[in-house]
């Protein structure tokens, strides 16, 4: 506990310090246990730690997504040219308040995608900012490095500004892709401002519901690591192709984390 006392607790009188047992128990969970207390209140350092985490999560929500930079990263990493598109949301606040606009392409993007359609593709990957622009900026390229070598498909990559999950349906539909995979920033948690979500939809078209998708959540080095996430995605893609469908009927037997409050109850704010 000595180390914890130094880093987490003030030197104030009356601080109820936990015994060293809490240092041990903290290994079992990322939850904020063993913070100590002053009377019933938080010690100063714990209070400040929380505020820093919240500040980071807030910054992640409002961070500007540099789609062009990501497109350059993709090219430099050998994934070829990707198209940059945008939803109908015009700024971050409108994006947050109008999920319907984040699910629809703006007119210019529609035209660009129609031109691109002529090449045809087997799989469309859409990379979107979602609720954390930090997440795709950090994790999209390293994740694709694990995924793409495993696939034989002719893959088209699209980078989308102010996109929700369902934007992938319209993109995939215009491109005539049999499947779309959306890599998108998840709602940032206090301890995970950069969590990436992966959504797979077979036969994408406007109007698909969340029940028709498969989700792999919490992709980041401290959560679900790239190789494991890639393995699950490749498995799901194979199953989707075999069954010609995606969604609840397609079970991820690798004990994926499906959060009932967020998904089955459509309380998810991603889509």
């Amino acid at each position, binding site marked *: 506990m000595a180390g914890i006392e130094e880093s987490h607790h003030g030197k104030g009188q009356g601080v109820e310090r936990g015994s060293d047992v809490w240092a041990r128990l903290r290994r079992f*969970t990322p939850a904020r246990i063993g913070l100590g207390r002053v009377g019933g209140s938080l010690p100063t350092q714990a209070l400040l730690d929380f505020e820093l985490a*919240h500040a980071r999560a807030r910054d992640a929500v409002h961070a500007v997504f540099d789609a062009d930079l990501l497109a350059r990263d993709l090219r430099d990493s050998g994934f070829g040219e990707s198209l940059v598109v945008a939803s109908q949301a015009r700024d971050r606040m409108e994006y947050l308040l109008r999920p319907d606009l984040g699910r629809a392409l703006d007119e210019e993007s529609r035209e660009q995608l129609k031109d691109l359609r002529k090449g045809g593709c087997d799989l469309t990957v859409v990379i979107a900012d979602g609720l954390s622009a930090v997440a795709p900026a950090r994790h999209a390229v390293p994740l694709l490095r694990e995924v793409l070598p495993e696939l034989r498909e002719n893959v088209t990559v699209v980078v989308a500004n102010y996109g929700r999950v369902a934007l992938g349906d319209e993109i995939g539909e215009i491109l005539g892709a049999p499947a779309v995979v959306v890599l998108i920033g998840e709602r940032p948690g206090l301890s995970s401002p950069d969590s990436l979500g992966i959504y797979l939809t077979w036969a994408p078209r406007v109007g698909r519901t969340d029940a028709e998708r498969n989700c792999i959540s919490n992709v980041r080095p401290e959560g679900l690591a790239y190789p494991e996430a890639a393995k699950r995605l490749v498995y799901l893609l194979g199953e989707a192709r075999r069954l010609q469908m995606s969604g609840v009927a397609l079970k991820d037997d690798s004990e994926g984390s499906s959060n009932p409050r967020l998904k089955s109850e459509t309380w998810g704010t991603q889509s």
Partner: protein
Amino acid sequence: MTYSITQNGRTHSFAGLKTLLAKATPARSGDALAGIAAENEEERALARMALAQVPLARFLEEILIPYEEDEITRLIVDTHDAKAFAPISGMTVGEFREWLLDPATDIETLERGAPGITPEMAAAVSKLMRNQDLILASQKCRVVTRFRNTLGLPGRLSVRLQPNHPTDDVRGIAASMLEGLLYGCGDAVIGVNPASDSMQGVTRLLEMMNAFRERYEVPTQTCVLAHVTNTLRAMERGAPVDLVFQSIGGTEQTNRSFGVSLALLEEARAGALELKRGTVGDNVMYFETGQGSALSAGAHAGVDQQTCEARAYAVARHFKPLLVNTVVGFIGPEYLLDGKQIIRAGLEDHFCGKLLGLPMGCDVCYTNHAEADQDDMDTLLTLLAVAGVNFVMGVPGADDVMLNYQSTSFHDALYARSALGLRRAPEFEVWLERMGICNERGDLLGASAERRLLPGASEWLG
């Protein structure tokens, strides 16, 4: 029917009760998203004036969602108690507000009146009430429920201990449970949201939490907040299920999107009652709700989100729950934009639920994409504690590391107790003193309790 109000020689009309209710609602992003909110502040104020003149009896005639199409409407209409309604049947919504605030209207009057009040009436009057009105009227509602302890008594505040873990790690959950108990939390329920909804996972958690509770003989109930169908299966397999949990909404279609119906909830309740696990009572249901769920499911039928929420309480009260929790700020800023809207919604939900006779608790919470912070949560927690909320959440450090949002912490509960002199459930209080966690005044004793409890947890914590 059209509702009109004349001001300064100009007449403003509202086409139907549904429209009037939506436009009279205090501003919130979800109603704007649905395209049903007032056009401007003046229209909102005029809608309230028009609403104040509507007779309560009108709500029994003009049905918002057709009887033939919605089983919740049928439930509301078919179970309405005309005798309980009689004393208020001649009032308008505006008069109803004054009656609620009248000191002559006491706890017993409201208790008797609850079966005569429909969710739509509760929602309507709440739209005319300021925050202080909502608090004052809530204080006059007493809803006491029992399973292994007694919840909702005056001067008491209980806590749901919420030991969530991102991968359902048993040791991680046990560590959070242990600390929560050492902070005197967990009298409402020890309830975990499972990260994985797999049967195996749910059963494992049910068994661990039950063994943990039995080891220390804690007078409380445990719950895994899995889908009701999984809880049914768990009961069939003989797993130790105290409470049946389910999220519910205020329209049939919302509940269908949650994969539930009234019949399914009835079946689950019957199953839990049969287990006879409660020692001091048989309230076996635990419901969660939240404004915006109907719109989120595309199932609001043009009804504003606060009225939809009140309709969910009609579902809840039919099943005599132990706990009803409005998860107020969880859904995000497209439904409740900021601290102001979350605080308002929390007070409305608590009031409407209590008025309808429900044991209301509140997950005082926000997400990181909402314009809110801990100060807003302190405000709502304080207001609800003053209003007499039955229970709040206890999450380690207020940070739910599985659901990625911020709720109230073990520390926050201690703050509310200390600021307002609120005590825990009586049976739990006795237990805390016996375990050396608290003294007879309910104050935490400190490290000595830790030494006493830890050895018993070695099975889970090594």
